[in-house]
């Protein structure tokens, strides 16, 4: 009898532990590039590949998909080249914006993306995926976007993780 009570008590504690952690199970993440900058950017329209930048910024945050929840994400990356630092792509500003996410995981966001150069939409609602988002600080993530004209994974935007937050 005593054993039963002990077992029941034990089961209760285990259930309690499970229910407490359930709320925190669907993980949420955020990554910023606010200092180190970019690794690589490819513009298939100009046909250039830049590896150094005048300015390179990224903010993203996302929540992993779980039953009954489709996953939600925000991503915007920005790269620019100045008149005195045009690089292979010339004096332009680029924006890589996630329109909507179709899938999210601990390391990746898949969805439809807009690419703008100097404010002009060059790739509208193009499918693409950013991977490597689970890397530690100092490592890189990589965004590849399909272009209807230039083919799959034609656009690339890759940067370093400066700060991250996960729970």
């Amino acid at each position, binding site marked *: 009898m005593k054993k039963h009570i002990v077992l029941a008590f034990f089961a209760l504690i285990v259930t309690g532990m499970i*229910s*407490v952690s*359930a*709320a*925190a199970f*669907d993980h*949420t*993440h*955020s990554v*910023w590039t*606010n200092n180190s900058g970019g690794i690589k950017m490819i513009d298939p329209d100009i046909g250039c590949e830049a590896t150094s930048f005048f300015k390179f*910024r990224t*903010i*993203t*945050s*996302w*929540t992993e998909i779980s039953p*009954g*929840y*489709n996953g*939600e*994400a*925000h991503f*915007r990356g*920005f790269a*620019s080249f100045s008149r005195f630092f045009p690089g292979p792509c010339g004096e332009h*500003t680029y*924006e890589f*914006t*996630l*329109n*909507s996410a179709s899938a999210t995981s601990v390391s990746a966001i898949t969805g439809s993306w*807009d690419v*703008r150069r*100097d*404010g002009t939409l060059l790739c509208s609602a193009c499918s693409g995926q950013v991977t490597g988002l689970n890397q530690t600080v100092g490592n890189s993530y990589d965004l590849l976007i399909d272009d209807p004209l230039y083919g799959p994974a034609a656009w690339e935007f890759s940067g370093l993780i400066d*700060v991250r*937050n996960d*729970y």
Partner: protein
Amino acid sequence: MKKRIMIAFSVVMIAAVLFSGRAILRNVLAAGTIHTHSVWTEDDPVSVRDGNTGCSYTSILKWRSITSWSEEGPPLYPAIAHFRGVVVRASGSFFCGHHDYDFRLIDASQTDKENIVGTWDVYRDGSLVCSGCTGTASNLGAAVSTTYNVDIDDPINGVGAWQFYANVNSRYDF
């Protein structure tokens, strides 16, 4: 006659200034100077209110929230944002008990520097208690250590019944 020329000239000048102003604005917008934001909170809560029971809690074991959004949309950009806030073991009076809460933005309809307007899901102890409810995260432009708030409408208990108020711990804007 001279006066007419002067008037015509000034009209042209004003029009030119207005148009170049628009061009400048568009350039500034396109250059993405201060248009994307992110705010994090770690264990710096103000309060959470249960829109179903009416209980407010300020005693919280664990509090996390992560959000990021781009302010341009719409009409220039689509409204894009992510927000999730988690409260672990909010404890109150004997009647209110203790609960976990999970606030999730599921779709954004409008974003600017300070606000994310959209539809939200709220979970209590893992169960969906407010589904596709309209709500706004506001004051998101707040400096570190000051408060932003999420107010979500409840279909039964009215406007802003669900509340998630917290202080900004870290922020980044570009």
